[in-house]
């Protein structure tokens, strides 16, 4: 079980897209860890993520539409998980937008900037390992949780409300379902894992009548040991985002499909501390209407496991 704890991965939850004609960097990152912890283990990790966008897409093609010059955000936070039993783990996370900035270049009014920062929406989850093959070749963990509207969604400057894209919160509750599968396909290579994670976000309507579309994020990943405690993480991520709604009416340019390559490296620093960094590189993007597309993102995470239970002593050492 401990193996999975090092796979701390921060991914964008498309369902939380803070979209005005969606831009990937407007999305509120969700966080997840794969699998469950051992009973009595507490894992904490801190993370940072930078998103950047400056290119518009129409369908799956780049378009020369010029409205936002660029859009970026810096997001950081903490995530805490605790193993209640060997099969059941609870998790909570809270993030903070250091900044969310949009730089516009609009005819008539020229260059403009809108920005905000603040606490983002909190997340709570419960995970249960429903199946673990005795041979260890297959494991299935199901999770359910919610996002809580702890972030502000209606911030203003000089009594003029800021655009939804830079608001740090969604203003609505969301339900989240996740499934995680681990497969060891080759008996001769016990260190080779294939990990699959799927997540669906069902978003509620905020007090302004805005509802982010249902989002689905799927990841397929594996690790390759490079040198001693250093591993390469290969991950592909698919994000599907349904239409957002304003007062129950579809927002024309708000649904999307995207596939990202997310290479990363993870290093075990000892004492149950690990550090990982990742890059997000879009491989395929399809947007309904004209939308600001994802350009790149990078993230860092450091995690530590605290053993709050009595250490297990093998029989032969007693």
């Amino acid at each position, binding site marked *: 079980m401990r193996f999975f704890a090092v796979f701390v991965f921060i991914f964008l939850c498309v369902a939380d897209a803070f979209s005005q004609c969606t831009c990937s960097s407007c999305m509120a990152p969700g966080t997840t860890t794969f699998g469950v912890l051992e009973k009595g283990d507490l894992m904490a990790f801190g993370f940072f993520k930078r998103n950047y966008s400056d290119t518009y897409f129409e369908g799956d093609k780049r378009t020369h539409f010029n409205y936002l010059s660029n859009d970026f955000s810096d997001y950081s936070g903490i995530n805490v998980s605790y193993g209640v039993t060997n099969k059941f783990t609870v998790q909570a996370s809270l993030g903070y937008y250091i900044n969310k900035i949009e730089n516009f270049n609009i005819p008539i009014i020229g260059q403009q900037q809108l920005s905000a920062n603040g606490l983002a929406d909190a997340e709570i989850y419960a995970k249960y390992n429903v199946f673990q093959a005795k041979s260890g070749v297959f494991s299935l963990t199901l999770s359910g949780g919610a996002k809580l509207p702890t972030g502000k969604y209606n911030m203003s400057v000089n*009594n003029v409300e800021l655009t939804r894209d830079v608001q740090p919160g969604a203003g609505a509750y969301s339900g989240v379902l996740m499934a995680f599968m681990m497969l060891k396909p080759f008996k001769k290579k016990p260190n080779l894992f294939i990990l699959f994670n799927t997540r669906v976000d069902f978003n509620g309507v905020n007090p302004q009548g805005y509802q982010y579309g249902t989002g689905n994020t799927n990841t397929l990943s594996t690790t390759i040991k490079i040198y001693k405690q250093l591993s390469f993480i290969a991950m592909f991520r698919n994000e599907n985002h349904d239409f957002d709604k*304003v007062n129950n009416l579809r927002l024309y340019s708000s649904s999307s499909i995207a596939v990202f390559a997310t290479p990363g490296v993870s290093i075990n620093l000892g004492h149950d501390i690990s550090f990982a960094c990742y890059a997000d590189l879009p491989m395929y993007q399809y947007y309904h*209407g004209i939308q600001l597309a994802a350009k790149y993102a990078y993230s860092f995470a450091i995690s530590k496991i605290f053993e709050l239970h009595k250490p297990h002593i093998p029989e032969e050492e007693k």
Partner: protein
Amino acid sequence: MRKKFYILLVCTLSFFVSCKKNDEATIPYGTTKNYSSVLNGTPPGASNVFSFTKIIISPNPVKIGIASKITAVATGTNLKFVWTTTHGDLFGAGNVIYYSDSCIGTYSITCVVSDGAHSVTITVPITISN
């Protein structure tokens, strides 16, 4: 047993019927004005000739990616203008601001004007087109 089965079946079907999506609805178009003048007595310095009559959008409809000037036509002293929109980007402050959006559709802009003694809210639709 059979009775329980039918009850369960009816409950299940009613759940799906109630959850049916209505994604094909069209955006209603029209002007909504919500006057909510609050008269709490006139504080020192406040004008007796407070009025907020309309919001002017120019040009209207708004062209996608181009800014339109939004003017709140109001009279009085020490006026405070609070602007919100259901979608899009607002720039500036005071009685004249600019609105722009990169997404076609019809949304609304709301302005609340107050002078400390009176408050009037006007909401107008705003259409973004190609």
